[in-house]
């Protein structure tokens, strides 16, 4: 297997899918000549030319809309939003159009579109450039939502997303682009909707996705040295969500912590916890915990930004809260 970065894995996925299917094209701000604000589309303009790698004006609504319109008549656009923060200008096209056109047309249309966007904080970009909006998209029927944490999944899930006949919101993370991992030489894809157990454990389940998987794994490692065995599950796809894997894990661990970089209120974790308290009520030995970003617009100052984001320590604390509970109950019994 080759070692490559998350960025390179994404680049390969696009390149290979564009080679495979002439209807696949890439459109977005500075994706061509500039090769992407985060250089994810490096070399694509050169290989595929300006017909298939399209630089746009700064017009998010029309970029999304043009992608959708082309998908309505059979093309398979990959729309790059420079960051998810700018998708706020395209919400009408994404939610009122891409997500609903198939239904409103009684099934006549399909919208095979991937909207890729980096999200997340950690680079001191301030409140308007550090958002995580995945739960907004989870809330919208008609969309799928993908959020890979490794180069392997980035490539495999992007391929599946491009091949999918539905609008897929594909989240990337600015701080993952440079992360390396193993990626097979041969063609492969990762199916949408299947979570992955990144680390087995019996004491507590830590559920996460995107960059927070690394925080979860770091916390799990620290916990191990303290005798706590955490199972770490990487959701990979957020919609549809692989609840079965979570329930399976809970049956074993009876405790759960969700770690998300998004805000807690009505975030992805809220849905996971709300679903599991129903699906796995009898298996729960303690309240499930949510670790998320502080509910403030993201500050610029480094110390404050760091304080706002989930950390390994905050995950460890949450794990201990789920365990303390057991201790308490055990004492009482």
């Amino acid at each position: 297997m080759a070692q490559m970065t998350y960025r390179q894995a994404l680049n390969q996925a696009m390149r290979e899918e564009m080679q495979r299917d002439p209807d696949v094209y890439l459109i977005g701000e500075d994706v061509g000549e500039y090769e992407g604000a985060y250089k994810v589309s490096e070399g694509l303009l050169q290989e595929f030319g300006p017909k298939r790698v399209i630089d746009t004006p700064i017009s998010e609504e029309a970029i999304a809309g043009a992608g959708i319109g082309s998908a309505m008549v059979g093309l398979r656009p990959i729309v790059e939003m420079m960051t998810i923060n700018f998708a706020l200008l395209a919400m009408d096209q994404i939610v009122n159009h891409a997500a609903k056109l198939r239904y409103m047309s009684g099934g006549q249309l399909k919208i095979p579109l991937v909207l890729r966007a980096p999200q997340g904080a950690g680079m001191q970009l301030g409140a308007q450039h550090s958002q995580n909006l995945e739960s907004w998209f989870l809330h919208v029927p008609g969309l799928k939502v993908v959020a890979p944490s490794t180069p392997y999944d980035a490539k495999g899930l992007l391929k599946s997303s491009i091949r999918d006949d539905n609008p897929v919101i594909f989240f990337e993370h600015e701080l993952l682009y440079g992360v390396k991992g193993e990626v097979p030489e041969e063609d492969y894809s990762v199916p949408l909707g299947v979570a992955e157990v990144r680390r087995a454990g019996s004491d507590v389940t830590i559920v996460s996705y995107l960059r927070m998987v690394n925080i979860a794994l770091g916390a799990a490692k620290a916990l191990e040295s303290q005798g706590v065995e955490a199972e770490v599950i990487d959701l990979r796809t957020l919609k549809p969500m692989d609840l079965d894997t979570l329930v399976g894990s809970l049956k074993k661990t009876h405790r759960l912590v969700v770690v998300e970089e998004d805000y807690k209120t009505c975030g992805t974790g809220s849905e996971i916890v709300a679903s599991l308290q129903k699906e796995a009520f009898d298996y729960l030995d303690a309240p499930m915990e949510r670790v998320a970003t502080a509910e403030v617009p993201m500050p610029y100052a480094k110390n404050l930004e760091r304080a706002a984001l989930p950390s390994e320590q905050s995950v460890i604390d949450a794990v201990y809260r789920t365990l303390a509970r057991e201790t308490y109950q055990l004492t009482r019994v």
Partner: protein
Amino acid sequence: MDKQEKIEMYRQMVLIRKFEDKAGEMYMQGKIGGFLHLYIGQEAVAVGFISALRPDDYVIGAYREHGQALARGADPKRVMAELFGRSTGLSRGKGGSMHMFDLEHNFLGGHGIVGGGMPLAAGMGLAVNYRETDQVVTCFFGDGAVNEGAFHESLNLVSLWNLPVIYVCENNQYGMGTAVARASSLPEIFRRAQCYDLDTESVDGMDVLACRDAADRAIRRARKEKAPRFIEAVTYRYRGHSMADPGTYRTKEEIEEWRTKDPIERFRQSLEGTLTAEDAQRIEEEMNSVIAEAVEFADKSEELPAEALYEDVYA
């Protein structure tokens, strides 16, 4: 254009008029729900522009689109069934008045967000050039849409990229209760498109042949030279914005004045010699029965079963 073609255009205008009259009636009877935006008064625009297209061209409208769907060849039975919310409707009853889709005729909706169809049309134009065909895209919307950001971004794109898109603004003088001059810094709508380096013009939207002529010219440019165009069709809606609109923002006199320019009546007069009084009478009757059949069809059609609620969300 030969005689037959003109008579066919006339037939379509009568069809639309009668269809919309009947739809209004059915709405009052509670057979149709939701919002119903009638096209009465604007028939010349849909028929003039759409009659000039080839079957493989794309058409996209807004929420006042029954007339456009019909002009494009959608079966009146299925349009009515859609309004009735039946399984036989164009969109299986899931779309309703605002969301008619007929892919068989390359009619791509039926969109309820003001201006929302404009970027989609740009995308279709992009697809045409991508595939290197000579199709064109015709996109209808109202005067109100001109003030949306989507208008601006779309016009810039089609001009910058030379997309074969014809944007047809049906300036019917009002966006709901707001007169054009109260919403647009330049009341001559076509002038609002003059800062994107594309062809613009204003045409009499009550004159179907003028519309047809503008369409022919625009289509020629778009097909051969990939030149987009913005056309303002000056027209009027006789009825309220929707069935719920009391219409207090305009006078009876104003409405009467516009009615004297009625596009169907005017076309009929201009066709004298070509279209005899008997022909007109015969068309009238034919259309009456087409509409009656449509209502009957819609009424007899089944609703979708409750399970169908969950169909068509994902492909």
